[in-house]
């Protein structure tokens, strides 16, 4: 009876039974492409891993040019399981970006952004940008040589954009050069601004998915089965998460993330320096663009082109919104395939290039 009273008391205040009822009613469509439904959840799970390991790293990390490198060194050499936590944070970040890309392309090719899910797509596009900013800002924090030059180049690229570029560069760097001031800023972005923003966008994104339910591709609209979300789908999700933890632990143990050498603002850039793999396709493109194209700086042209593509990404659901328009459907498929091929090929080229 006591338990019952407590349940009733909580229920009156928190409407638990209403929520339970909603959860009980929630269903996931089952069809040939159901597998893609797991990648959003997987991305979210890896994000949670990032939050947990990130908080742990904050126990020891010190965000200053004098101490950052040494504190990471301390974490991976002195702190118990520090090597594990730090490597998982790095690996999970990379896997999260990979699952995010898979999620995005699956949503794109299955046309899950058709009305009324445009805003879901747009919030997802924002999350892509946020995650890339997470990667870029987090990369600098160990304050090693690679990170130092990656940040120099990355912020310099922002500076190339006409008119707004220079102020953006100074804002990002906290001055004209990459210094300790940049590190402090990036730390603030990485552990405060971006997590807060990400939380809001994830909230909107997931709430909209609940509101509209899972999208079912047109082909299967008339004949698909359903699976209960609780417990059937969530248990399948959980298997994925356990696998992910296993993979992360294995990667961390077998391929521990390197720390490299401490950054030195007066040392030359090391040979073979490259950005993280998810920036490689852009990096390689910028390497190949000639110095001058039609009287314009090649670099500026390339960067403006990437900005334009990013903009296009946001407005995809507002251009392609008629499921009956077969021609547009085809054009979008071709564009998607070309973009995917371009990213894959240029990443590989960037990876093997000297």
């Amino acid at each position, binding site marked *: 009876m006591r338990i019952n009273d407590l349940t009733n008391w909580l229920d009156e205040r928190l409407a638990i039974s209403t929520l339970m009822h909603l959860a009980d009613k929630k269903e996931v469509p089952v069809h040939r492409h159901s597998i893609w439904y797991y990648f959003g959840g997987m991305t979210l799970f890896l994000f949670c891993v990032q939050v*947990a390991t990130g908080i*742990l790293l904050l*126990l*020891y990390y010190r965000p200053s040019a004098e101490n950052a490198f040494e504190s990471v060194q301390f974490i991976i050499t*002195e*702190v*118990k*399981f*520090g090597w*594990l*936590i730090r490597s998982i944070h790095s690996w999970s970040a990379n896997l999260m970006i990979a699952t995010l890309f898979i999620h995005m392309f699956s949503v794109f090719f299955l046309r899950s952004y058709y009305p009324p899910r445009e805003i879901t797509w747009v919030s997802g596009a924002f999350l892509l940008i946020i995650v890339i900013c997470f990667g870029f800002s987090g990369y600098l924090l160990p304050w090693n040589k690679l990170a130092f030059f990656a940040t120099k180049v990355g912020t310099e690229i922002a500076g190339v954009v006409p008119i707004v570029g220079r102020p953006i560069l100074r804002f990002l760097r906290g001055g004209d050069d990459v210094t300790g001031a940049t590190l402090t800023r990036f730390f603030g972005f990485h552990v405060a601004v971006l997590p807060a923003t990400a939380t809001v966008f994830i909230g909107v994104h997931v709430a909209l998915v609940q509101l509209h339910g899972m999208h079912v591709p047109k082909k299967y609209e008339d004949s698909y089965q359903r699976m209960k979300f609780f417990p059937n789908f969530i248990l399948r999700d959980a298997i994925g998460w*356990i696998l992910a*933890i296993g993979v992360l632990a294995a990667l961390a143990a077998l391929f521990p993330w390197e720390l490299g050498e401490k950054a030195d603002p007066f040392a030359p850039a090391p040979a073979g320096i490259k950005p993280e793999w998810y920036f490689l396709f852009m990096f390689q493109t910028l390497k190949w663009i000639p110095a001058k194209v039609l009287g314009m700086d090649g670099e500026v042209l390339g960067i403006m082109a990437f900005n334009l593509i990013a903009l296009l990404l946001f407005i995809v659901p507002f251009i392609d919104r008629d499921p009956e328009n077969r021609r547009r459907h085809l054009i979008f498929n071709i564009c998607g395939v070309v973009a995917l091929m371009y990213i894959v090929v240029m990443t590989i080229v960037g990876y093997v290039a000297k």
Partner: protein
Amino acid sequence: MNPDARRAKVDSALPASQPRRRFLDYLLGTSAVATLAAIFYPIFKFMSPPQIVESTENSVVAAKLSEVPPNSGKIFKFGNKPGILVHTASGEFKAFSAVCTHLECIVQYRDDTKQIWCACHNGQYNLSGKNIGGPPPRPLEEYKVNTRGDDVVVTRG
């Protein structure tokens, strides 16, 4: 047929499935616990800070003679802990740990009361380091003082 009735029928048709189910539940439960342990053990270990090796320094130059006129005190670094050197009005040198035995504030010498005083909770020690007023429960640890030329050298007892 409703699900309960169906389950009842399956259960009655397969009475032997009960121990098997219990065994599977047991396996599932232990794997879940093992997995959680494997996740949380490193986390708890990570959170407890590693021991920093304490300085084994046994003697330190606390001050130059000229820095501490009679009836004054000076805080000095003894390893990674603060110490206090007092030059009494009568010309004697005394040295103690500067960590108040109450709640670890750092004490100071007061030339008006000629006592060692802790500002946090008005703890008072006399010039032998004995707690004589306020909340401190124990005397301050005393060190030996020698003068070597112009240097005042403090040694752990």
